[in-house]
């Protein structure tokens, strides 16, 4: 629902990349903050490979906490970067539940298959550059930041 009590103008969440001179911006748009966070996670995977190539066979629960929604978005992406690096996995499905001061999520994916996924680049971390979480007048939630590759 928007601040005016109307339904958001978008029918479904979506993700996109935006320009940064040296690196890449990830943006998720959703009807709720949780959906925007899920879409930003898909945009993160898309920096590395096509998300549709990643089969969500293995589920992993994750959680993080931060003092505000924007720092929480950076934390969420950094948790995903950590899980990708230490498990050698890629993820394509994200079920996010936002709670007071944090979030819990179940992320699903599979082990990296270098031939099939053709991973383009490793992500070092989510930055606070262009970091933003907020609701547009049309009710859609937007969550974004630049990631360092």
């Amino acid at each position: 629902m928007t601040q005016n009590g109307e339904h958001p103008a978008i029918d479904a969440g979506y993700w996109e990349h935006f320009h940064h001179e040296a690196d890449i911006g990830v943006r998720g748009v959703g009807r709720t903050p949780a959906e925007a966070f899920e879409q930003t996670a898909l945009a993160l995977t898309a920096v590395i490979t096509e998300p549709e190539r990643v089969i969500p066979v293995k589920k992993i629960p994750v959680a993080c906490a931060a003092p505000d929604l924007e720092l929480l978005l950076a934390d969420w992406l950094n948790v995903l970067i950590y899980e990708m690096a230490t498990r050698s996995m890629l993820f394509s499905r994200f079920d996010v539940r936002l709670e007071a001061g944090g979030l819990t999520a179940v992320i699903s994916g599979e082990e990296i298959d270098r031939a099939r996924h053709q991973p383009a680049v490793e992500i070092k971390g989510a930055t606070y550059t262009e970091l933003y979480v907020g609701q547009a007048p049309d009710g859609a939630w937007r969550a974004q930041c630049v990631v360092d590759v």
Partner: protein
Amino acid sequence: MDTRQFIRLSEYEWEIPASGSMRVPAIIFASEDLIADMDQKVFEQATNVAALPGIVKAAYAMPDAHWGYGFPIGGVAAFDPQQDGVVSAGGVGFDISCGVRTLHTGLRRDDIERVKEQLANRLFQKVPAGLGSTGRIRLGSREMDRMLAGGAQWAVKQGYGRREDLERIEERGCMAGAVPDDVSEHAKRRQRDEMGTLGSGNHYLEVQQVREVFDADIATAFDLQAGDIVLSIHCGSRGLGHQIGTEFLKKMVVSAGQYGIQLPDRELACAPIDSPLGKTYLGAMRAAINCALANRQIITQLAREAFADVVPEADLTLLYDVSHNTCKVEEHVIDGKPRRLFVHRKGATRAFGPGHPDLPDAFADVGQPVLIGGSMGTASYILAGTTAAEALSFSSACHGAGRAMSRRAAKKKWQGRGLVDELAARGILIRSPSMRGVAEEAPGAYKDVTAVVDATHRAGLAKKVVSLEPLACVKG
């Protein structure tokens, strides 16, 4: 950028005078063309850095400066602990101590022409590259801590390389003041499988030929002549450094208010040098420098093994190893008085000139080698530190080409396979696990490194010595 925003101090030096919250001016070194092409964000970021507590003299940006995180990439700033100076996780960046090392091979072009393909394949087999690759070394927690405390010195003790390599590495291969206990378990876990790996993005290992000699005397002192084959390795502290950067960025943002620091940009996250958080960051960041030095040392050994398999007469000896994302304690003379400063270089190379006490004897008369990587398929350069750079930029120079085009635009414009074929036709062999990665790293996606190096030379930050031409490149 509109050059009218600056006071032109000299042909290659542009000043933004201190105003508003800026404590010092900002100075960008560049040619008129380079500065005109720079993003306006470089101006904003340089002025933001100039507003940080305890900054000394000026916030500097090198000729390859571009829009970074908080600090511009190509940014240099020094802080004085006696004047409430800060240390900034954002000012060092995620890839702590990312750097370049160049090795002589003792070979000439004719020695490798026939075996170039075999050599490229062997290097690609030996040196793990790209996302999802793992090293053959697994460190237990005690050994991990020894590596973090010992850097390349640790690696040599483990049999990776030779004792004499250490003489040719900044800090003699071991960064003092590293505190492994200040590094989180998460950061250590992230490094577990990544020792001796190249990483991805703009990291590479490249067989190169010395193409042009610009300064014969210094080239002789560096033991380089046209036609020599060298090997360059560009990579950093891998997952450990990335995780340390991530964790301390957040800690410093959250605690800035507690230290009375107003951040003009969250990415400038910092803490007073003498605060508990500042000290913990320095302990962890120095451990990450050691991780990077150990990593490049291990890769050196892997490269030596690959050369030995293909060209047994090769003898890989280290020319030098430089880091370009660091914060280091250095003495600099300010207004005639020596001061102990914390110099941040983010995408900038330390470039000590002749006579600097920290240089190996071999470089005492000519200054240190400043190793500047190009992009895949384009030239790289070796420069020499100058005495003048001490007063100009706290002895700092550029670090590379810098991107001109986003990864996404590059992926749309080029096909990886086509690029590999095109470069092969020009005699440059590319080996990479990811064709999409190759497309995103296309030579045309980078700025012209030659213009950056020329500006660095003409500004007096470092002297051009030789150019290097790529022959075979392993890309992550």
